[in-house]
């Protein structure tokens, strides 16, 4: 899986490092002082991840917790994300990571004690001035669960939220890798949000990810164990039969979990920054975006025209309500 594994000198004896190296015996191991000596030093083409993918085991320095952009999650409460990894094993052709880092190589930040401390400090600071809840999201720069059996970090993050029931943790994922989570007792304030799209869209665009059915099976496993579940319908991509295809998907979802039991459903329409759009064009020139109705908007983002975005969001929200979702549980992600 990994061509080379770069390990920061200080982390060579960490049990997490040892576990990773034990699993990938055939990868060449290189000891370095700091991952930034190598990672992003040259521009490595995104699709090179198909042939030579490297892994960095490193410590995250600087800001460990960051405020999330507006409309990132349910409104009315502050949202933050924390960084425990860079990059992803999947290859979604719309993913902004292809235009974000100058390398597709994976970085695992394993200084979890420092990161969890930063989360707890943020919770305490918030609770000194507010009675409202506070949200933390994992997976801004990576998939939260896809490699959790390697990173072995879920428990340490969940512990923070066991101690802080008014704070919420969201794992956002496209994976079906629920192994690590299944062994942990569920908490009402730790929510796993599965990104879902109609089966054919997953096949066309979420390259190398589990199918819709596999993701639904993962949802069922976690639900049966009592873990709170959220759904993330993003990116919504327009097709002539969009209503039928989302109805079909919702039928499958409610066979797995009634929407009344879903904590929340976030909706987002496909969108790109101009730089990411250029990268997508370079990496996936045949993808459907290039003959769709996307425009470059006045905010310099590439997205559908306003009436179309709002129609799509309205229509999918309507379908969610029709299939049993509570009105207050459906929100629009990253839309004004």
């Amino acid at each position: 899986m990994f061509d080379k594994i770069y390990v920061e000198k200080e982390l060579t004896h960490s049990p997490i490092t040892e576990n990773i190296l034990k699993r990938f015996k055939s990868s060449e191991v290189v000891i370095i002082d700091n991952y930034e000596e190598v990672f992003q030093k040259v521009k490595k083409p995104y699709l090179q991840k198909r042939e030579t993918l490297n892994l960095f085991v490193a410590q995250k320095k600087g800001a460990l917790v960051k405020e999330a952009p507006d409309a990132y999650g349910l409104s009315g409460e502050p949202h933050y994300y924390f960084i425990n990894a860079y990059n992803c094993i999947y290859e979604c052709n719309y993913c902004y990571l292809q235009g974000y880092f100058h390398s597709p190589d994976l970085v695992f930040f394993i200084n979890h004690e420092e990161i969890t401390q930063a989360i707890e400090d943020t919770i305490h600071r918030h609770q000194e001035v507010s009675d409202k809840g506070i949200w933390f999201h994992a997976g801004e720069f990576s998939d939260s669960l896809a490699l959790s059996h390697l990173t072995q970090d879920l428990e340490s993050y969940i512990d923070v939220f066991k101690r802080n029931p008014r704070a919420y943790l969201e794992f956002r994922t496209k994976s079906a890798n629920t192994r690590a989570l299944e062994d942990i007792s569920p908490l009402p304030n730790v929510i796993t949000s599965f990104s879902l799209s109609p089966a054919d869209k997953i096949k066309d665009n979420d390259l190398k990810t589990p199918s819709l059915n596999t993701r639904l099976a993962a949802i069922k496993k976690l639900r049966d164990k009592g873990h709170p579940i959220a759904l993330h319908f993003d990116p919504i991509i327009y097709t002539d039969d969009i209503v039928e295809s989302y109805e079909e998907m919702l039928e499958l979802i409610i066979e797995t979990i009634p929407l009344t039991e879903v904590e929340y459903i976030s909706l987002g329409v496909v969108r790109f920054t101009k730089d990411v759009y250029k990268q997508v064009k370079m990496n996936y020139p045949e993808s459907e975006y290039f003959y769709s109705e996307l425009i470059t908007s006045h905010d310099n983002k590439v997205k559908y025209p306003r009436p179309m975005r709002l129609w799509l969001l309205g229509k999918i929200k309507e379908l969610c309500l029709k299939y049993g979702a509570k009105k207050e549980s459906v929100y629009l992600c990253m839309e004004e």
Partner: protein
Amino acid sequence: MDLLVFAHRGEAMTFLKELELKSNSQYNDLYQNGDTLLLITKEGPHEVLVKLSYALGLFPNIKRIINLGICGSLNKEIELESIHKPRTIYKENEFKSFQCNSNENKDSVDLITTEKRILTEDDASALKNFATLVDREAHAVAQVAKTFNKTFEVYKLVSDHITDAKFCERIKENAQLYSDKLYDFYDKNIQSSSSKAEQNSELEILRDSDFYFSVSQRRIFNNLYKSLLKKSTINNEQDFTRVLSIEDIKSREEKTPKERTSLLINNMSHALYPFRTKVQDSLNELTSELRTYDCKFKYDKDLDKKSFKFEAYIDSEEKRDLVVRTLKNFSWQRFSQIMDGQIDV
């Protein structure tokens, strides 16, 4: 890599647009898109020698230099606006001459490059001994190309027969036309075979006399056609004819070929952008009354801003009252609903 060399921006304007060339950050007079570069040298051989050498220094991978532009004719029998590939290129008061590299389709006319503009019969008479066409750059282009060991080609459009007439103003006025014609020629005859393959010139409709495609219409057509092919509904020219109701368009005898092309392009846009078309149709329906009285109603072409511009020509009190009344009756609520996506799709 090809480098297109022009003296004036006016000659290059269609190329800049059609080839989507963007200014190079290192050199303001140089434009680029992928493997195609375009250089504007300004008039005269001295400018060419300096600027072309600099461009070749910046881009050593240039393989072919193509000089395009207008020239004068010393022979009144040479047709105006005809395009020539000169056989030999001379220079005024210079011994050395150059032959174009390619032997294909070479004209039997020669060209001479001069240090100053040739505006009178007197100036022209001495040159007639050497060549039929006169320009200000080709020899310098050839000289630099030879020095850098590059292939070069020269194509010149005859803008005037050299007389005492003041033709400079006319050339300026016709710059767009000349640029269009040069681009058309370039597109059909010069572009590399690989990029030609991407064009759809083999489509029967492009040769159909019921339609006339201007340069920009052909560009739009090609882009739409390529996109439509990627949509599964259209797989070949038969599907294309059926889905876009081409036979119906052809039967519209009251329309000119150019208007039929507009209809065709419109149908292609509808097929490719069905949602946008529905929104536009709704907006057009809503504003039909406003547009009745010489008023202009403009909304964001990308349909992204919830606002519109309204322009009215008022030449009487009655007209003012009419416009005010109509505008007052205009339903902002419905406009707002459309822009918020509340339409039947």
